[in-house]
């Protein structure tokens, strides 16, 4: 028997399984207050998914406000936080939308489908802004590389990311693969998508126009992911917890490809008044959000939803997370046209509702009213928590334990240290992963991994393009969440500038443990505060992002991992700065200051040490450095550049040499300890390569801006014979310390991942 | 109604890397002595009405043309149910 509104009004004492659905008692009581009666089981289902942590952001809202409150003024911002994704103006009438999202828990349960549907979800978010999706990127984090479970999870995730993205025809232009034991039971699969459109094509998720039709189109609705949102994302993986039936969604990229083409056609034909994709919380989310944002009311005939599984109950239909579905608001005089475009692409579509101005979301099932609620209370006025937080009692001791306590290698061990770092899982060559992704499709990929940013040409005539980088050092964030989040932004910002693009906007994916743990909540609060302050200092606003809580197993939370993505614009992609250096004789310069900073470094990590303070950060210096890199790129002063980060200067130059396949002669400044010079991870640095003819102009520019610039080397392809290697072989000579062939460096760097995962 | 099962397998001389991968996995998961694994496809086709000779011939043709690629695959066709009253 169907639980109707009348029934609910008549039977207030009925016991409802709100706890099993993830709602707390106070939340259930509040729903009763809002409705003036007990909820029907359909309303209960809707509120339970929409008020889950993943959908409502109840633990994070109070902190995330800072992104808006502290937002620097930005002429480029067209759509800010609150919509599916942020939109920025990149000039010439082009708008770009981008966002990063998480799909962590499902990827632990079912790596392939979890990762695949993560890609699918973020692509639909971008599509629902009115943009054609242009590229994807994936910041990924796993447990230790040699752990048995990593061998289960990693290959599945990579195959899923590639399997879905490749089939959609979206080039994968960058991302990260990071290993740390804290991710062992909680891999992080963050997926980013970027899309572009002309200004006039920007669409928002609102249902305006009384009498307009609500159309559900795409895949049929089935039992995928029922309860996935509230069940998986709001609870941690725990042996003793209630048995959570894994309810992972299964993706069909072919259907999504058809959805993309059909959607872009109807958008460009002006047939759509509002649009929303169906992600977490499926139909509950799409209808309540569209209704809230529009004229305030909507009526839905739930029995009209096309089903894959005819046995689904209304509650299950409302909660289903079947993939590849979108919801559009279409005027009655345009519906036939809309449907014919769908038919052309073999995409099923059905009218399931109507916009009205009742201020209520009403849902009928075969003529009986099963839901009648104010949509804002479902979509936007969920609980807001002020979770208690406090600095962990162990934080001081952690910070006091600097990496200065570890024995440092002498000059004779520098080469071995370098080889050890190159072979370590975090610094090893990632081709085993990235060769499983199509980077060529669409023919507009100008830079992709392992370059510092992924760069896409948006306008084939003018060459205007965008660059994106994502970064986060979770170890730095553990040592100091405020500074760690700022360092993540600084690195991402620097990576965009290093390729010649001007940073415009920020997205973020904040991956943390349980918000019910005050120490984790402190990490979160500090990270958000740090990121908001840094965005203000650098002058670029956060346009949107995602929070993923409950990434912990038992009491052990993951490293606080605030992944930051920065988007920049470049006038002409032809002028971009790659990381390969050019002809012999070009000069290699190191910009910025190198300090004795090893706490949280890759070198310390290999030695099993995590403690101390992360590298110091000077945001003003980062800004100036960025301006120099962009100006130099624009004016043709530099031929190559690379950010200095994990592993320090030595790793940066090795990466450039391996990419160039050409050697160089390097020397270290006299006044700096060589170990520090080679491996410290100070922020605010980049390696640039300039033609001799530009040296004076470039160094004068650096001096004028107060940025130290040290000449540290010269490109030299003929060093092989001079240094006892075979004639013609390429080598790197590090001052008087050691000379090593690129072949040896490449072997150390490239063997690790294939050996572990092939 | 009728139910027809079409099993499609790669020809013996065609490399089956998926079958080989499954063979490896079986061994790693504790099943010793697996000498070969080949992976194929099964189509279960439900038809209303009966399966007269003409329809059967069409199905046979499609099994050899659409459901399988004769260059690299073999198929077998089995009629499981064929009656007018329904199963």
């Amino acid at each position: 028997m169907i639980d109707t509104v009348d029934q609910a009004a008549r039977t207030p004492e009925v016991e409802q399984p709100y706890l099993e659905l993830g709602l707390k008692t106070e939340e259930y009581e509040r729903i009763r207050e809002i409705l003036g009666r007990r909820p029907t089981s359909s309303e209960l289902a809707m509120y339970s998914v929409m008020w889950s942590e993943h959908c409502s952001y109840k633990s994070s809202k109070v902190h995330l406000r800072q992104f808006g409150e502290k937002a620097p003024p930005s002429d480029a911002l067209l759509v800010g936080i609150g919509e599916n994704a942020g939109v920025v103006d990149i000039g010439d009438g082009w708008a770009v939308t981008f966002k990063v999202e998480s799909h962590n828990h499902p990827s632990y349960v079912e790596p392939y489908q979890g990762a695949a549907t993560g890609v699918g979800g973020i692509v639909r978010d971008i599509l629902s802004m009115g943009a054609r999706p242009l590229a994807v990127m994936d910041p990924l984090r796993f447990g230790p590389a040699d752990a048995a479970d990593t061998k289960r999870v990693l290959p599945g995730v990579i195959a899923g990311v590639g399997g879905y993205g490749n089939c959609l025809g979206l080039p994968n232009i960058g991302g990260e693969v990071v290993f740390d034991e804290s991710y062992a039971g909680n891999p992080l699969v963050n997926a980013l998508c970027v899309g572009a459109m002309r200004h006039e094509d920007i669409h928002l998720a609102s249902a305006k126009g009384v009498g307009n039709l609500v159309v559900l189109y795409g895949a049929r609705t089935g039992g995928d992911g029922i309860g996935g949102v509230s069940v998986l994302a709001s609870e941690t993986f725990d042996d003793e917890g209630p048995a959570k039936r894994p309810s992972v969604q299964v993706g069909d990229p072919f259907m999504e490809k058809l959805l993309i083409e059909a959607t872009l056609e109807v958008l460009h034909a002006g047939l759509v008044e509002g649009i929303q994709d169906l992600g977490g919380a499926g139909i509950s989310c799409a209808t309540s959000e569209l209704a809230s944002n529009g004229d305030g009311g909507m009526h839905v005939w739930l029995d009209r939803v096309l089903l894959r599984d005819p046995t689904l109950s209304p509650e299950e239909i409302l909660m289903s997370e079947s993939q590849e579905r979108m919801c559009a608001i279409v005027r009655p005089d345009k519906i036939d046209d809309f449907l014919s475009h769908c038919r052309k692409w073999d995409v099923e579509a059905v009218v399931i509702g109507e916009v009205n101005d009742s201020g209520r979301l009403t849902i009928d099932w075969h003529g009986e009213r099963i839901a009648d609620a104010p949509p804002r209370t479902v979509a936007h006025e969920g609980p807001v928590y002020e979770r208690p937080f406090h600095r962990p009692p162990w934080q001081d001791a952690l910070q006091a334990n600097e990496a200065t306590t570890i024995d440092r290698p002498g000059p004779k061990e520098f080469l071995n240290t370098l080889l050890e770092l190159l072979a370590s899982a975090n610094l090893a060559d990632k081709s085993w992963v990235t060769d499983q992704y199509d980077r060529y499709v669409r023919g507009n990929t100008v830079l992709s991994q392992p370059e510092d940013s992924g760069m896409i040409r948006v306008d084939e005539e003018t060459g205007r393009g965008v660059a994106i980088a994502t970064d986060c050092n979770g170890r730095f964030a553990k040592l100091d969440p405020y500074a760690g989040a700022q360092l993540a932004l600084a690195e991402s910002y620097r990576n965009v500038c290093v390729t010649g693009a001007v940073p415009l906007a920020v997205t973020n994916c904040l991956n943390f443990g349980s918000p019910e743990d005050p120490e984790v909540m402190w990490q979160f609060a500090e990270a958000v505060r740090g990121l908001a302050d840094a965005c203000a200092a650098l002058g670029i606003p956060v346009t949107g992002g995602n929070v993923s809580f409950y990434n912990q197993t038992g009491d052990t939370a993951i490293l606080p991992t605030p992944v930051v993505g920065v988007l920049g614009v470049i006038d002409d992609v032809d002028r971009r700065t790659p990381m390969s250096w050019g002809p012999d004789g070009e000069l290699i310069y190191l910009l910025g200051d190198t300090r004795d900073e090893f706490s949280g470094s890759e070198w310390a990590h290999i030695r099993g040490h995590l403690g101390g303070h992360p590298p110091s950060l000077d945001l003003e210096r980062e800004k100036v450095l960025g301006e120099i890199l962009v100006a130099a790129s624009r004016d043709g002063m530099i031929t190559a550049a690379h950010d200095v980060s994990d592993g320090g200067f030595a790793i940066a130059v090795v990466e450039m040499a391996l990419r160039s396949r050409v050697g160089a002669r390097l020397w270290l400044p006299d006044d700096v300890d060589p170990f520090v010079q080679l491996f410290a991870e100070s922020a605010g640095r980049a390696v640039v390569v300039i033609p001799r003819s530009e040296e004076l102009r470039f160094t004068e520019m650096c001096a004028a801006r107060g940025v130290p610039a040290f000449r540290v080397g010269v490109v030299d392809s003929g060093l092989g014979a001079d240094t006892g290697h075979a004639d013609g072989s390429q080598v790197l000579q590090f001052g008087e310390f050691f000379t090593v062939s690129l072949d040896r460096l490449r072997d150390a760097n490239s063997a690790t991942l294939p050996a572990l995962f092939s | 109604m009728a139910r027809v099962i079409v099993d499609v397998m790669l020809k013996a001389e065609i490399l089956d890397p998926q079958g080989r991968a499954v063979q490896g996995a079986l061994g790693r998961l504790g099943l010793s002595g697996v000498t070969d694994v080949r992976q194929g496809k099964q189509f279960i086709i439900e038809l209303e009405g009966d399966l007269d000779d003409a329809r059967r011939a069409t199905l046979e043709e499609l099994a050899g043309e659409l459901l399988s690629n004769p260059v690299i695959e073999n198929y077998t066709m089995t009629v499981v149910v064929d009656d007018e009253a329904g199963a």
Partner: protein
Amino acid sequence: MSARIGVVTFPGSLDEADAARAVTIAGGEAVSLWHGDDDVKNVDAVLLPGGFSYGDYLRCGAIARFAPVMDTIIDAAHRGMPVFGICNGFQILCETHLLPGALTRNDHLHFVCRDQKLRIENTASAWTRDFTPGQEIVIPLKNGEGGYVADEDTLDRLEGDGRVIARYLDVNPNGSRRDIAGITNERGNVVGLMPHPEHAVESLTGPSTDGLIFFASALSSLMAGAGQ
């Protein structure tokens, strides 16, 4: 008047825009053709682009092969029209039996995207006549089901007739028999190639501009009056 080359879009095709760009850069006029329409708009040649037509359901290219547009293209191919199948297009051509053999799952079971070195061994076909015999090129390869197979007799015949148009060098990326990257039919008008020349037409976005030569070849063939 430049030659008109039709580029087919199937549901799930991905590289048709890139193929059209390649045709344009090479000097031809790219004409968009829809899978559901048997009218090929009087084009002079046809390109079947890369992608995952029909999601690679059943087998790669197995469903696309029965599209209305393919009936027209098969007829035209039999009458000598130049037809070029790239990646998924190659798979479709094999499924239609315009080309012998089949493409199967990569032997290492992974999707692979790499800059692939090839040797062009047949410069008589409509799509390779502008190469020099034995020319080595580098163009992107990206596939999960790129392993070319055929029985020994067929392989021997292909070799004997010089119908292998391109062979993998340095690395065999997918387990293709005899390192075969591309083949042509007896007449030399239908060519299938696994790697993607349309992604090697601009130095800004590709490893070389070697890919352009395939498209330029077709234009030269048409100018020379071949493929009537």
